[in-house]
């Protein structure tokens, strides 16, 4: 518990001390002196097409939603103060689409997370962090003039949206044993958070994603399979799809023997695969490891994960 309390307490104690130092996304740009905020109504005098685009969205200037705690709202929340731009009556003195398009991912994401602070929290180690993908690449419905991919609303399943950029996963989901994403029964987002890494603070790390549905493997067990509790589920399973039953990574016994290979332990028995039992005869009799070791994820009654 101490390890939990210390970092959290440290952050909370640190925050008030530096609270005055926070600045907005706009400060990443060289905003000219004298530029001031004019309000979205002034912007829409010329950019009425943009107002139309946003008519039914949270970004509609009419809704007046502001960056939390700043009062800066509408167009200028993302494009910066527009007074000089208005006075100039040209394309200058504003953080326009071309300038934004040439920014790195960090700046682009910072623009959105001014308001979407929860996503800012999550983005740190996410699968798309550090790439050239930013919010607008996927949220094309929400950000005007954004290109990239077909909007999610155009698809029957949310999964199909993600697979536009992940064709390798399409092939996985066509394998004989698979999670049924293409069939629409499971979405990518059921397991993956596109904004964030697997939750490092979840009780069982990455495995927690799997255990949300496969709760019976969660235990806690008296006897844990080390391969379950300290490794990842993907050590043995290919969650997207596999040629092998139960989404195993390789053919049955070959998978178990990757780790459980101990030919020297019981020399008197010739060839063995288990620490204290000779298994040669068993494995020549068409048996698989889990024919006997049925409780391979964990057991409360048998240390060797058998039914007894």
């Amino acid at each position, binding site marked *: 518990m101490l*390890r*939990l*309390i210390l*970092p*959290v307490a440290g*952050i909370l104690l640190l925050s008030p001390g530096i*609270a005055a130092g*926070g600045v*907005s996304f706009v400060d990443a740009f060289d905003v000219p002196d004298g530029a001031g905020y004019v309000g979205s109504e002034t912007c829409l005098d010329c950019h009425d097409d943009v107002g139309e685009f946003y008519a039914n969205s949270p970004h509609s200037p009419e*809704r007046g*939603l502001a960056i*939390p*705690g700043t009062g800066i709202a509408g167009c200028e929340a993302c494009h910066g103060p527009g007074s000089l731009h208005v006075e100039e009556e040209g394309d200058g003195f504003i953080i326009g689409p071309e300038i934004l398009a040439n920014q790195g*991912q*960090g700046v682009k994401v910072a623009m959105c997370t001014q*308001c979407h*602070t*929860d996503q*800012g*929290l999550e983005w740190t*180690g996410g699968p798309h962090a*550090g790439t*050239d993908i930013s919010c607008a690449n996927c949220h094309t419905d929400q950000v005007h003039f954004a*290109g990239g991919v077909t909007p999610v609303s*155009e698809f*029957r399943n949310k999964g*199909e949206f993600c*697979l536009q950029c992940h064709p390798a996963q399409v092939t996985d989901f066509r*394998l004989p044993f698979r999670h049924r994403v293409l*069939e629409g*029964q499971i979405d990518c987002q059921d397991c993956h958070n596109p904004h964030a890494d697997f*939750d*490092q*603070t*979840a*009780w069982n790390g990455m495995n927690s994603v799997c255990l949300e549905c496969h*709760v019976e493997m969660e*235990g*806690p*067990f*008296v006897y844990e399979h*080390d391969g379950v509790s300290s490794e990842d589920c993907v050590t043995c399973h290919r969650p997207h799809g596999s040629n092998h*039953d139960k989404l195993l990574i390789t*053919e049955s016994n*070959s998978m178990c*023997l*990757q*780790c459980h290979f*101990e*030919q020297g332990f019981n020399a008197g028995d*010739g*060839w063995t695969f288990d620490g*204290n039992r000779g298994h*040669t005869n068993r*494995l*020549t009799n068409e048996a698989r490891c889990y024919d006997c070791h049925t409780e391979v994820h964990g057991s409360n*009654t048998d*240390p060797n994960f058998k*039914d*007894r």
Partner: protein
Amino acid sequence: MKMKRTTTATVLGLALLAFALPTLAEETVDLPAQAEPIWAPTGDVIGQDNHGTATFQSKDPHGNEAKGAEDWQLVQKYSGQGLFGYFRTQENGSQYWLRGYGDNAGTGGLVGKFDLGGNIPGQFKWNIDFRDFDYFYDRTSEMRAPGFAAPPPPPELEGLPKLNWRRASIRADYRLSDQFSLVGGFNRKCRIGDKGSLLRGDTGSSVPGAKLFDTTTNEFWGGIGFATGSFGSDLNLSYRSTDGSRSLEGRHDYTDDQTRFGAKLGVSYVLSDQFKLVGHGATSKLENTGRDNVLGNTYDLNGETTTSAGQIGLLARLGKSANLAASANFRNLDTDAQTNLAADIQQATTRKRDSQDYRIGINYHGLSKTLLRLDYRYGTSNLDQTVAESDVPGGTQVGDYQVTDQSRTQQDLSFRARYRLGIAATIKARFAWRNQEIDQQGPVLSNPGNELTFWMGDRDLNRYRWELALRMRFGRWVRFDIGHQAIDQTYKRKDFGMSETTWNANRGFSNLTWTPAGGSLDLYGMFSYGVERYALTTDPVPAADMNAIDYDGSTMRFSPGANYRIGDNLSLEGHYEGIRFEDTGNDEVIKKLQADHDRMRLRAGYKLSSSAKLSVSYTRNEFDENRWDDYIHHLYAVSVSGTF
């Protein structure tokens, strides 16, 4: 004698597709190559217009019913499918939608999903998601025995195993003010039915087992968010319970009674336009008070795991060209679990696992046409575990006990690079290395003759993984990707004569899409070939009749397709997908396993009016294996789609 060593993959035929490409290059949107979503039901109309589709399908099946049902969830000879979407926007800007689809192709009952939601933009949004699907399982659990190709077929389960998954979730987000927001929801998952198990008994030639499920999981969760200026935070609480029963037919009955409570706090603070701090803290408590009935004995279970975890991270923008992310993660798991028979403790465990994990990642895009990213992760964990008989560890009635003291160190290094060769081509590369070292003391036994848990000893793992891809765009019409992926893993057991196993996988792939803008013909295709091999690399060799020790699998996939439009009203589509999987194993003792999937769909669509479309399709799915599970499905479908 050394066993077979790794061979590299042969990537065949990939360049052939490239010769058809036009050489004219111009700037284009950087989309990946992709095939049409041919898997969608016949005549789908989707989008943000109100729409609906009704489909009638007839199946002409041949061969193994269970395997076909497992692959495609198709059982009924005649079935219907429906798909719809309804959207409405009020004058005040509020929006509502209902989307869904369903079919009765499985057991004849209706299964499917719907998504109902609404919002007041910027203030309130809600969503209800419901899914109800049946999963079917093959009746046999087959073994790669030396003579497996010969009759008779293996024993099989009676009936067709079917497991129903029903899930529902409700979520609502409410923005109280500029600074405060609330979020909450409810999730429910039910599993009812039976599924095929890999279990077949000690001899391996018995009827496969079946697992029976009747479990329900409910979860309530809620949170509050607060943000002001540079500071953001959210607090989430959740409570989950799982009840029900499971059974491993005739051998083991389970009564589930599990609860979990969790709390998580997240904070972020923008220090400047260059630095941002983030932090998470979480705690959870998992309890299991279920019951196991094994071979006539009923055991009461009492297990509890308490977790506390924290994460603190720094995001930094280093000039205009580089970003840095660094974080430290801590997790502590404490478990106490015991099994009682009547009032007597049979065995009990105390387990403490502490782990620390430090990560740093830098990406740099200061070089022309280049993006670089380097990540490094260093983690350690310690496990202290005591398993005891007759009492909890440290108790006065303890009989024999065993202590496990294990320490782990893991390093992950990853490097990614992307270089734009020109307007039309980009090369991408990724290399990753993992090293894991596990030191395990002991075994420390109170009674050396009574080992209570399996002891693995010291072991090391080294895994290299790399990917190389060339992405090309020719004009606005042609997209072509080609690449190679590989994994090379070595696993050593230090305490057993330094035994060593290897696992290697290689895969080559290519995607081609040709979509002439405004033209009448689209072409697309994909080809991939992969090899993976598992081998033992140290003496002694296995016994001559040992089965399934080597694994040497290859998978080839070929998937071309075309769309052709005739005038404004008629469209023709054709798609083929062929997959061949082979496991050569050890040819001397195990016959080669070979499985072919041949899938084809032909579809014709005729636009009846600006808002209605009629489609007919023929689909053929064949599975051809040199064992017993062959089947062919001929599917004929007609559908009407409309927007309104």
